[in-house]
C-alpha cells in the first residue's frame, strides 16, 4: 500500500476517481446496451469505458493498473471483440444465407431485447474499440515517460 500512495497523483484526485469510476463504467454500459433505442452505441460506449480505465491509470500510476489489466490482456480482449463480430456474421451466414444476417427475432420496438443481433454487435464493438484504445494509451504512456527520462538525464549530465 505504501507504493500505492507514492505513485500517481494527489490524494484528492484519487478520491474523486474512486467516486467517479463506477458512474463512468455504468454510463458507458448504459450507452452500449441501449444503443439501438437512444443515441449511443458501441463506438462512444467503448471510448467511454477506455476513458474510465485511462482515468485510473492517470490517477494511480500505470504500475498499479497494469497489474489488473495489462497491455497483453487488453490486446487479447480487443481481438476477442473483433472475432465475436466476425463470428456473429458467420452464424448469420449459416442460418440465413447472408453474411451478418440478423438471425435473432426483431422483438417489440422500444424494448431492450429488440432488433436482433444489434445488441450483440454493439457489445463486440465496445470490446474492440475500448480495449484497443486503452492498449494504445498504455503503450504511449510508457513512451511518454521515456521521453521525459531522457531529458532529465541530459540535464543531470
Amino acid at each position, binding site marked *: 500500500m505504501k507504493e500505492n500512495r507514492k505513485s500517481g497523483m494527489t490524494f484528492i484526485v484519487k478520491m474523486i476517481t474512486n467516486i467517479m469510476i463506477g458512474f463512468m463504467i455504468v454510463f458507458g454500459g448504459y450507452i452500449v446496451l441501449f444503443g439501438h433505442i*437512444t*443515441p449511443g*452505441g458501441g*463506438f462512444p460506449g*467503448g*471510448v467511454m469505458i477506455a476513458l474510465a480505465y485511462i482515468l485510473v491509470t492517470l490517477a494511480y500510476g500505470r504500475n498499479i493498473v497494469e497489474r489488473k489489466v495489462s497491455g497483453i490482456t487488453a490486446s487479447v480482449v480487443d481481438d476477442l471483440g473483433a472475432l465475436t463480430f466476425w463470428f456473429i456474421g458467420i452464424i448469420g451466414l449459416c442460418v440465413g444465407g447472408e453474411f451478418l444476417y440478423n438471425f435473432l427475432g426483431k422483438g417489440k*420496438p*422500444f424494448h431492450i431485447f429488440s432488433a436482433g443481433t444489434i445488441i450483440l454487435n454493439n457489445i463486440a464493438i465496445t470490446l474492440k*474499440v475500448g480495449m*484497443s*484504445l486503452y492498449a*494504445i494509451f498504455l*503503450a*504511449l504512456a510508457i*513512451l*511518454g515517460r*521515456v*521521453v521525459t527520462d*531522457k531529458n532529465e538525464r541530459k540535464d543531470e549530465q
Partner: protein
Amino acid sequence: MTLYFLNFVLFIIGLYALVAKRHIVKKILGVSIMEYSVNLFLILIGFKKSGVAPILMKDMDLSTFIKTAVDPLPQALVLTSIVIGLGTLALMVAMAIRIYERYGTFDMHEINRLRG
C-alpha cells in the same frame, strides 16, 4: 451555401498548418482540423430543413417521422470515421515520439538539417 464555404475555409486552415508549419505536433493538429472539416461537411450535406434526429421516440408518428428525419447514412459513416481518426491520431503521435527520440527535436527544418 455560406456554411459550405466557411467549412472549406476551415479545411484550408488545416491544410496550411499541415504544409507550412515546422513543428510536428502542429502538423498533427492540422490533420485533425481537416478531419473535423470533412466530418462536418458530410453532416451538413445530410441536413434537412427543420428536420429531426433520425431516432424514433415513443410519441412520434412513423409517417411524419420518415418525412422529417435527417439523412442517417452520412451520420453512420461519420460515427465510424471519428473513432478511426482517433486511431490514426495515435499512429501519428507514435511516429512523432519516434522522431523525437531519434533527433531530439520536433522541428522539421532541424530534422532535415540533421539528416544532412
